């Protein structure tokens, strides 16, 4: 089975997020003066072959902690797991 997985990587709460601060600082220039607490993260989408959804999740969690995120400074979580058509298979 083939799955498409979306992973969200965010800076740990409490860690300064200069990127979020920069975005927050720019919003009032466009007239939005009521915004605070902006945090910027990363979104990773990938596809993988796995025996089932549980196996796909387990593998993605391991990939997240070893490469997609740095657990010292970031949290990661799976947003969505969706079965997708096999690669190379023609669907008519």
């Amino acid at each position: 089975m083939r799955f498409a997985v979306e992973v969200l990587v965010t800076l740990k709460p409490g860690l300064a997020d200069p990127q979020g601060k920069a975005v927050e600082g720019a919003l009032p220039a466009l007239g939005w003066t009521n915004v605070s607490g902006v945090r910027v993260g990363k979104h990773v989408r990938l596809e993988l072959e796995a025996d089932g959804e549980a196996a796909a999740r387990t593998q993605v969690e391991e990939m997240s902690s070893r490469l997609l995120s740095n657990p010292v400074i970031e949290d990661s979580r799976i947003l969505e797991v969706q079965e997708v058509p096999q690669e190379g298979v023609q669907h008519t």
Partner: protein
Amino acid sequence: MSARIGVVTFPGSLDDRDAIRAVELMGGQGVPLWHADPELHGVDGVILPGGFSYGDYLRCGAIARFAPVMEEIRGFAARGGPVLGICNGFQILCESGLLPGALIRNRSLRFVCRIVSLRVETTQTPITADVPPGEILEIPIKHGEGQFVAGEADLDRLEDEGMVVFRYCGPDGEVSEDHNPNGALRGIAGIRNEAGNVVGLMPHPEHAVDPDVGPTGGQALFASLLSHVMATAR
């Protein structure tokens, strides 16, 4: 015989040649190492140089840590071999788990490029073995992601076990936020591992060895590294 110091070139390394030049100016032999070559060619010490390995994609140092040569360096470090990570090299060591903590975007959001004063905090590393603690060294920094962070427990352990090697300071050695160029927690510019043989720092000692082009604060560090290597090699 002079000490043989390997300098790794990753795709995107910038300061590999300066590091080799610094080693040679100080009387050692610089040995170029290649990221894809899982072989250290019998060197006595390893430098991971500055730059933007793999374009700093994902996170600084995140991809470089999986280079074939890194597996060899991990073994070399475990056997007590001296490993020095400068700037991007420091980021790679943190991503590899060879050093605790991480380096994130400067608090100012700006790339900083200037000469800083550094206070030496410990002699328990190959690069500071011959440098008295409290010594102030002038060395340039140039980075966008140099803010050292770690959990409180890790920070306390770094302090308690003397693993902080360098702090940003003023001209008289005073550590304060005024002299902190990137927001690094507790003013930390460089750290070591428990054994002391793996050291990472954001400032660039390899750019501070030639009096014709700037400060010479790096000389003492390279001299110490080379003499340490010669003393332990036999």
